[in-house]
């Protein structure tokens, strides 16, 4: 029992904290805790509470003072007439009583993260809309790695290195972790990296510019149980054993505060009354929007099943079959799928399962199995691999071919419906859809970054509610009132489900509702469909999620037409690969032989590539035969291959080199430091020349790095701002560390007017980020200058700068004549830079024409040239044999276009023109880079897509954020190339 003293004034106090996943309760009597309990409630809050109260009655009289807290406790408290107290408020009460010398509290719960600052007025914060680093997140990640949370913790204690993992949201993190797993990175390291992500998220999301120091109290379940997580917090915050406190009552801090709140109540309550209320009939279904049942009766369901049974692959008995066979492996992000086909395309063997965090082992085991069963009867005459783990598996087992996922799926879908024109694949972790036009893959849409809502989330839910996935989806088929849960991110679906349960929805209703959510999410968020016509007439759906009849039914209903779902919906990638292997027409496959398989070993080692400034984290896989496979690098350099791409024009590299070559000089008037972030990537030449002319030394903060980002993250006040803006904080910290005197980032409502748009604004973030920095960063005496300037009229700028220098550099006595000259030089330098960029753009286009190479027009913004922001996409493109041009290098080569939206931002206006350039230029393809959280891109993406598609060009969008992994991007670009090649033929 908890050994703490609390004056209970002769009363019995009960505090119950009903969190998102667990219930925590304490009973305080005779000045001490006489009872405490902590358990998962599996969303059966009422039932579990009755049980709890029964237990409590052994320790308490019937007359008690009781209060409830916690995000899932609100409804129950209202229904039972028990006072409710907000959990952060309760925690603060507890801490004031039990640990009054605390400076900061960090509390992690199931879905919430909280920080309370006690010094200088209590300041309480909870995570906002994006809920990354919480208990649920850790659970999710443990599931992903196929270990229990306890095991994850144990693993994390033996880490050697930390990988950068995007922490904002589970979906992001998965995209970083999955490839690490697939590349064979050590679980110990990944485990610790996950915890580090949680720590970073807590600091970035909640500290918001306040430093966490003094005595820090860590509370909540995860921090009580997870030793590794504690360690990460302590190290990151540089705390020692004295000022990092993990109290014994950590899990119960809210419950204790709740009990203290109960003490303030005037009247006691009777336990028996409350139990009676909890057990009474629930209020009938009310106020929740519902739809009609998925199936009215079994007959309707039967017909549905019969219709879909038509799309089946015949099976052949592997025990008897003799002859050639073809192996297809789909090594997906979370699951590995394997198919063995006979010469008649019959299914001999199939496998579908989680890749257990190590796909190499899974495939090895499956191959052993196949060899054992088939002996000498069967010759594997061809083998092909697809999926995230394509290269790894191909190298490990010497498969004949690798093919990009989209192609594999297309081949498979064609098998069932030769005239297919739309394929939708909803897997465990991702949604993919392809449009097929004229027999080639035309548009590819993937769920990226935020708001997934893919298949695994139904499964996670089913499990959380204590059901298997099959039973859970069956319950949904005939549910009377399927709930409309909306389309939202997984994390928040929990609270919607809680809300629905509060309103009286049953499990079946929720199951059906979740199926609808998945479908709507795919239709409206990923595909952005307006009507069924967007899909064409021949739709094939696949992916494991569609094996769930409830999801399939919802999809057909929402679409208003029937679709084809093959009975091997979950195996389509592998099936397509097997068909591809067959098409290779080989006598026998080069696949690893049974004997070699016996000797097969696999070790993975993490290393950092020092080939360039990117310092990619790589994994070196060594196989038994001495073969090596390196993964995780952004370019080919890490493979020991000299990059043959240096001469191929790459505007991104050109611009980077140009900006970084701006020289420092002896500044007799002092130093001005420029943070190389947001619009500084483009305006650096202007300010550099301007200040240099005036006799200042100009220092740039340099390109971004991961470490630099981490350095500044504690001063970010809004965690939903775009990544390029967040990086700014790191640049400022770096300049301060480097001993800057003055840091300059002017406020510019208006950008350069290029005469191509109705107005020439900057986006609000670029324009006013200086205001935010000034208010949130501790400049430590360094002067931060963010004057409002007009960079369109040199005359105005001169006027404004005169005032500026008088105010901030009065002793320098900088006169008008000097400023005039400086402004002139500044604009000249800017024009020079832009002209050089445009000239290089022309050269690149010419080069492409001569060599016959394709041109990738990257439509982004100036800051996208930073490799930390674009994650090396330009290098990837050149390695895929593209000539890379940037939007600003070609936007002036076409007549300004008119668009259907308000065209009023200079940077975005260039992108429309770049799209026009891509349309007019043969072999030019546009790739739009979109930063997550860029509100203006919500407008540009649709418009640019429309422009391109109306002109029969393929639109490719790449959403980028903190995620460093290029896996999805690679698939994207390779699919693009495949589609282009097919088109050309």
């Amino acid at each position: 029992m908890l050994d703490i003293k609390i004056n209970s004034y002769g009363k019995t106090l009960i505090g119950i904290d009903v969190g998102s996943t667990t219930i925590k309760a304490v009973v305080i009597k005779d000045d001490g805790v006489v009872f405490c309990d902590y358990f998962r409630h599996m969303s059966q809050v009422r039932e579990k509470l009755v049980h709890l109260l029964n237990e409590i009655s052994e320790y308490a009289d019937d007359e008690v003072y009781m209060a409830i807290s916690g995000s899932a406790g609100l409804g129950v408290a209202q229904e039972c007439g028990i006072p409710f107290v907000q959990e952060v408020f309760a925690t603060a009460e507890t801490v004031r009583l039990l640990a009054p010398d605390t400076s900061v509290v960090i509390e992690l719960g199931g879905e919430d993260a909280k920080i309370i600052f006690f010094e200088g007025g209590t300041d309480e914060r909870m995570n906002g809309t994006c809920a990354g680093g919480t208990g649920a997140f850790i659970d999710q990640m443990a599931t992903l790695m196929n270990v229990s949370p306890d095991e994850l913790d144990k693993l994390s204690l033996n880490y050697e290195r930390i990988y950068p993992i995007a922490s904002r949201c589970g979906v992001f993190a998965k995209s970083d972790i999955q490839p690490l797993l697939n590349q064979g990175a050590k679980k110990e390291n990944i485990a610790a990296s996950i915890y580090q992500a949680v720590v970073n998220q807590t600091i970035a999301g909640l500290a918001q510019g306040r430093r966490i120091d003094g005595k820090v109290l860590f509370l909540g379940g995860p921090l009580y149980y997870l030793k590794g997580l504690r360690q990460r917090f302590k190290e990151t915050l540089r705390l020692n054993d004295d000022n990092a406190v993990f109290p014994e009552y950590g899990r119960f801090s809210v419950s204790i505060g709740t009990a203290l709140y109960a003490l303030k109540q005037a009247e006691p309550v009777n336990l028996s009354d409350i139990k009676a209320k909890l057990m009474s009939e629930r209020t009938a279904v009310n106020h929740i929007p519902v739809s009609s049942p998925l199936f009215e009766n079994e007959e309707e369901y039967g017909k549905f099943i019969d219709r879909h049974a038509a799309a089946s692959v015949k099976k052949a008995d592997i025990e008897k079959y003799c002859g050639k066979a073809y192996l297809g492996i789909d090594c997906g992000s979370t699951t590995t799928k394997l198919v063995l086909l006979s010469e008649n395309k019959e299914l001999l063997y199939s496998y579908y399962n989680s890749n257990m965090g190590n796909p190499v082992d899974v495939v090895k085991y499956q191959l052993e199995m196949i060899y054992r069963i088939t002996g000498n009867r069967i010759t594997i005459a061809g083998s092909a691999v697809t999926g995230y783990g394509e290269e790894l598996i191909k190298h490990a087992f010497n498969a004949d071919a690798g093919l990009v996922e989209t192609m594999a799926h297309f081949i498979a879908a064609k098998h069932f419906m030769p005239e297919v024109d739309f394929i939708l694949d909803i897997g465990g972790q991702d949604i993919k859809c392809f449009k097929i036009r004229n027999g080639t893959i035309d548009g590819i849409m993937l769920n990226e970054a935020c708001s997934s809502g893919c298949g695994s989330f139904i499964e996670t839910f089913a499990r959380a509610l204590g059901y298997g996935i099959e039973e859970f989806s069956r319950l949904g088929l005939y549910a009377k009132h399927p709930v409309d849960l909306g389309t939202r991110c997984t994390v928040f679906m929990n609270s919607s489900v809680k809300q629905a349960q509060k309103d009286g929805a049953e499990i079946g209703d929720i199951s059906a509702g979740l199926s609808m959510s998945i479908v709507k999410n795919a239709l409206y968020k990923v595909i952005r469909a307006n009507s069924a016509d967007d899909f064409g007439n021949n739709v094939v759906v696949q992916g494991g999620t569609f094996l769930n009849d409830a999801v399939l039914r919802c999809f057909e209903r929402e679409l208003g037409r029937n679709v084809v779902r093959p009975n091997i919906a979950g195996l389509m990638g592998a099936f397509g690969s097997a068909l591809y292997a067959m098409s290779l027409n080989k006598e026998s496959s080069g696949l690893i032989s049974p004997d070699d398989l016996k000797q097969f070993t696999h070790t993975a080692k993490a290393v950092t590539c020092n080939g360039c400034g990117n310092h990619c984290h790589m994994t070196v896989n060594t196989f038994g035969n001495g073969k090596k496979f390196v993964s995780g690098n952004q370019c080919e350099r890490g493979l020991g291959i000299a990059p043959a791409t240096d001469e191929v024009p790459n505007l991104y590299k050109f611009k980077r080199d140009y900006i970084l070559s701006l020289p420092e000089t002896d500044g007799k008037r002092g130093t001005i430091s420029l943070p190389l972030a947001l619009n500084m990537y483009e305006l650096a030449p202007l300010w550099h020349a301007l200040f240099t002319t005036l006799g200042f030394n100009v220092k740039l903060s340099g390109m971004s790095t991961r470490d630099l980002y981490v350095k500044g993250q504690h001063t970010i006040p809004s965690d939903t701002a775009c990544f390029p803006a967040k990086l700014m904080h790191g640049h400022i910290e770096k300049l301060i560390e480097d001993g800057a005197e003055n840091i300059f980032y002017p406020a510019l409502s208006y950008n350069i007017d290029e005469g191509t748009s109705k107005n020439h604004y900057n986006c609000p973030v670029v324009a006013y980020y200086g205001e935010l920095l000034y208010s949130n960063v501790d400049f430590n005496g360094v002067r931060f200058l963010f004057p409002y300037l007009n960079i369109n009229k040199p005359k105005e700028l001169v006027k404004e700068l005169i005032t500026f220098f008088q105010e901030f550099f009065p002793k320098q006595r900088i006169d008008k004549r000097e400023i005039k000259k400086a402004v002139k030089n500044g604009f000249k330098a800017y024009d020079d830079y832009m002209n050089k960029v445009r000239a290089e753009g022309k050269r690149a286009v010419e080069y492409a024409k001569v060599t016959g190479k394709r041109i990738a027009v990257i439509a982004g913004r100036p800051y996208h040239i930073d490799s930390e922001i674009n994650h090396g996409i330009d290098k990837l493109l050149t390695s895929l044999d593209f000539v890379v041009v940037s939007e600003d290098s070609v936007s002036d080569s076409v007549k300004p276009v008119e668009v259907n939206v308000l065209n009023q931002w200079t940077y975005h206006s260039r992108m429309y023109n770049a799209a026009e350039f891509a349309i007019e230029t043969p072999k030019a393809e546009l790739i739009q880079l979109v930063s997550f959280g860029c509100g203006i891109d919500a407008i540009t993406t649709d418009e640019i897509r429309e422009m391109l598609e109306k002109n029969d060009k393929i639109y490719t969008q790449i959403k980028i954020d903190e995620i460093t992994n290029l896996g999805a991007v690679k698939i994207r670009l390779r699919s693009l190339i495949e589609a282009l090649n097919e088109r050309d033929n």
Partner: protein
Amino acid sequence: MKEIIEKRIPFTKEMKKTHTLLVPTMLSMHFSIIVNILRAYGYKAELLTNSGRNLISAGLKYVHNDTCYPAQLVIGQFLDAINSGKYDVHRIALVIMQTGGGCRASNYIYLLRKALRRAGYGYIPVLSVNLSGIEKNSGFKITIPMWHRMVYAAFYGDLLLTLKNQTLPYEINKGDTDALIDKWISRLAEEMSHKLLRYKKIKKNYAEIVKDFAAIPKNTTPKPKVGIVGEIYVKFSPIGNNNLEDFLLSEGAEPVVPGLVDFCLYTIKNADIDYKLYGRGGYLKVFLHNFAYRFLIKKQNDLINTIKENSDFRPMTSFDEVPDMRKGIINLGVKMGEGWLLTAEMIELIHSGVNNIVCTQPFGCLPNHIVGKGMMKPIREKYPNANIIAIDYDAGASKINQENRLKLMLFNARENMGREIEDVSKPVRNRIK
């Protein structure tokens, strides 16, 4: 390439007779009066009242999901209304406000047209209400007398909003306040159709309204006051903010909502600021804007004085003082979205004794990264008693999480109030003078 540009469907003179103008809801009281002004000038007009999940579904379907939530809601509300079957779709036109500026909100009208085309209603005309004279239509013109009336509609609306919030939480007889609002809305709406608009009469109305509200019997137990600031749509519209005002009322708080006139004044003042900062806009434009600014300030002060003279109600702060309140925290140059106004409003609230503030914004709102969340640190440093919470709204945010965070703010509000009450005895409220 050029063929992708869709022609705007004009609103012709003939349409004025045949078509009904649909106006989205943002502020029900203000907009009810405004709709009546349109009617008085020969338009058929209707204020949309549809709400609920259908709006969001329609919005999600036809608007890019990363676009701000207000765009999804406003467009969703239109489409839901069009789909409802209530209207002859060939005899309606849609009205939308356009403010312009560097915020992506200036794109709503384009996104609306896009959504209409996608939904197969490309032929429905969309009208822009704006001050800059862009997008002219032969059949739709807001004349000077109409603008004049709209100005007073905004003042009436702000007055009713201010008085409602100070009466509703305290009324002894449930329904008194709402009944009084209904009474005045219909009376004011009716008066707007009169040929002559006399300022004397308006001032008399102000006084009568104030007296009427003061006469409603009220409890004197003070309640924690909670200010609401934010992006204009989610700040004002119950659809946008999940009925925030009602929630605060149900939690025993008094909502305090800075009015619409402030936003208009902010927009007008920015012309002057732009001129001073960047030399943009030309002298005449600035002169006209400054003239309008002084005019409105004077009218607002009249309104404030009427409230003071006739009651103990807490009047709105004169906007004349508002721009200076943000001094030392944010510059007036921040002019996109709600810009410096949002920061200034938070401080204005604190100055008028409202320390508890909900800062509302659509998820991912670009200007609010700076002017809302970005300014909380300096505000808290300067005013340690400030109890501010930022709430993000979008189709994916769950109500339960929002309410839990609001509850945290409210718990602290009540506790802080408990402390205050121990110190000062509160005066009796809202006595008629």
